[in-house]
């Protein structure tokens, strides 16, 4: 018997839960309402931890039941970690709504970081990106005053963009000025 020491009903319940796990939202994993308060989320985490904590079954020999429990408890923890922080919870809700429940696990920060990095390289707005590219083209042609205007334009759309600021400063430093205004 692979799951020695476990009541058959419990073994069956755990097996079904483990099978369903990848289709459950974090709210379903924690068995709380999507409008549940932070306190309710924590209470649910404590309650479920008592029930599914791997240490509860530590004394059993290695078996599929134990592996299921381990997977379930890790998912409970994951759900708690994402839902306890208002920031990640809001992002998760958005993701859940956008995918109509198709993506129930929180998308890694990696994807966001990559998107952010890409935005920093090319700009967040279409017009900003376009002006920036135009400026780069002018730099290539050594037409620095034109580049300056293009980068200034890009900064109108994205005043905080560090990359645009740097490009502008670079272009300005290359402009040869042969007069001064008194």
């Amino acid at each position, binding site marked *: 018997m692979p799951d020695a020491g476990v009541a058959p009903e419990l073994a069956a319940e755990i097996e079904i839960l483990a099978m369903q796990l990848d289709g459950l939202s974090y709210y379903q994993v924690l068995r709380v309402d999507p409008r549940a308060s932070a306190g309710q989320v924590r209470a649910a985490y404590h309650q479920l931890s008592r029930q599914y*904590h791997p240490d509860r079954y530590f004394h059993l020999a290695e078996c599929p039941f134990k592996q299921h429990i381990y997977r379930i408890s890790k998912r409970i923890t*994951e759900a708690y970690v994402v839902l306890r922080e208002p920031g990640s919870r809001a992002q998760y809700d958005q993701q859940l709504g956008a995918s109509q429940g198709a993506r129930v696990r929180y998308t890694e920060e990696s994807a966001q970081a990559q998107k952010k990095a890409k935005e920093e390289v090319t700009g967040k707005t279409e017009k900003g990106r376009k002006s920036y590219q135009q400026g780069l083209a002018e730099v290539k042609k050594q037409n620095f005053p034109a580049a300056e205007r293009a980068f200034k334009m890009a900064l109108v759309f994205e005043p905080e963009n560090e990359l645009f600021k740097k490009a502008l400063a670079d272009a300005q430093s290359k402009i040869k000025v042969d007069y001064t205004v008194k």
Partner: protein
Amino acid sequence: MAQSDVVIGIDLGTSYSCVAIVQDGQPVVLPNEWGERTHASVVSFMEDGRIMVGNDAKRRLLTHPRQTIYSAKRLIGRYFFSPEVKKAKAVAPYEIVEGPNHAVRLKVLGEVLSLPQVSALVLKEMREVAEAYLGHPVSKAVLTVPAYFNDNQRQATADAGRIAGLDVLRIINEPTAAALSYGFGQNLNQRVVVYDLGGGTFDVSILEIGQDTFEVLATAGDTYLGGDDIDMRLLDYFADMFMSQTQINLRNDVNALQRLRDVAEETKKAFSQKKKVKVQVPEVYTDPQGQVHNFETVVDHDTFAKLTMDLVQRTFKVCDEAFQSAGMSVHDIDAVILVGGPTRLPLVRDSARHYFGREPSTEVDPDEVVALGAAIEGASLLDDNASAFLLDVTPLTLRLGTVGGYSEQIIPKNSPVPIDRTRTFTTSRDGQERVLIRIFQGESNRIEQNEMLGEFAFAGFRVAPRGEVQIEVTFEIDANGIVNVSARDPETGQSASTTVTLSSGLTESEIQGAAARVQGAELV
């Protein structure tokens, strides 16, 4: 209870270790045959191959400083090039050398020893204390580590357990063990802070105890801050004073230095009871002309406070960090638990009372509470009606090395464990057969400011044009706080082979070799 079901809880401390079990439902510390309840974590090697561990070994620090190892825990799981190892090298009378992959080794009587091997000898002694007391063999154990220990230090401690021949059921964090001992069976609903200032490390953990559930909300620490550093301040003070009196630098004399260290520790301990401590070191130095020098002074409490106050203040900076992580303030706390020998000092107690704004709990013994907690956890794990659930956290952010010396966060610090995270990697070259990743722990974006845990190579997936092969890598932190990495091809579901290609840890054969030596060693 069957003999095989006895689990010993071992607090493997920097300065002192302690062993406990749960007997008839009550956790108790097991004394040795002399009635000693804590044992110096000191290992002394003798010329005839015998090894002495504990309080007797500590006495040999004065007579055999080069072959007597103390505070090994300050070195375990560290890289040779780390600043902590440099600091230890500057003051240790024993020889610290570099091993493979920048690991740290000790050279004693011509033999090269790993740190886990030395710690294993302390564990073996704790096991023998328990066996002598109980009258039967024991093999199962729960070990404790500082909460702020990183993966390398935890792995090395786990290796020490294996080398000692112990079946280590779990590694738990010292402050968590203390909270468990404080709250177990008390039916509490409290938020507590554990301030754990040990011989070598400082930890602070904030926990929410809800009856049988012990949830760590945040932890912070400094793995190189403890009673040893207080001793060092006194030692420096004495050495400087002696130098100004005699122009003799005792730091250049191993034996004299060891005497001063011993006196410094005694002086520190005396300040737990006294306001003024008289220090006498007769015949501390004999100069080449044969003239014998004594050292004498009186240290008052103000001087002691001046010498050490910045160390104590550092602990509260760490506390600030923990409260910030938990999103709480000292007003949210119901109890303060002080752990570790140095918390007996009025200087530390008064500062803690002032910082936390309340009287620290006097219910726990600061030297024994961690071992008691480990014993409770051990008994609970083997009980099919487990009576305590620890929800602990990982103390450091797990990171993945990316391009240009930067790193990306995978699992943030203070995340509950066990937990896992999966990332998908794509090949970047045609026909690529291997994907190599490096993982780190720490709080900086720059990889060099973090601790490297290892370099992992994944192979055995399809060979195809670049970008076509995906490898799903799962990073897991288990209940011991130890990091596991595995990989699979999401298309075929086949798991890729994972090899650790760079790590400071011991190889399997090194562990086996050390185990044979440690388990065969005769402890006197």
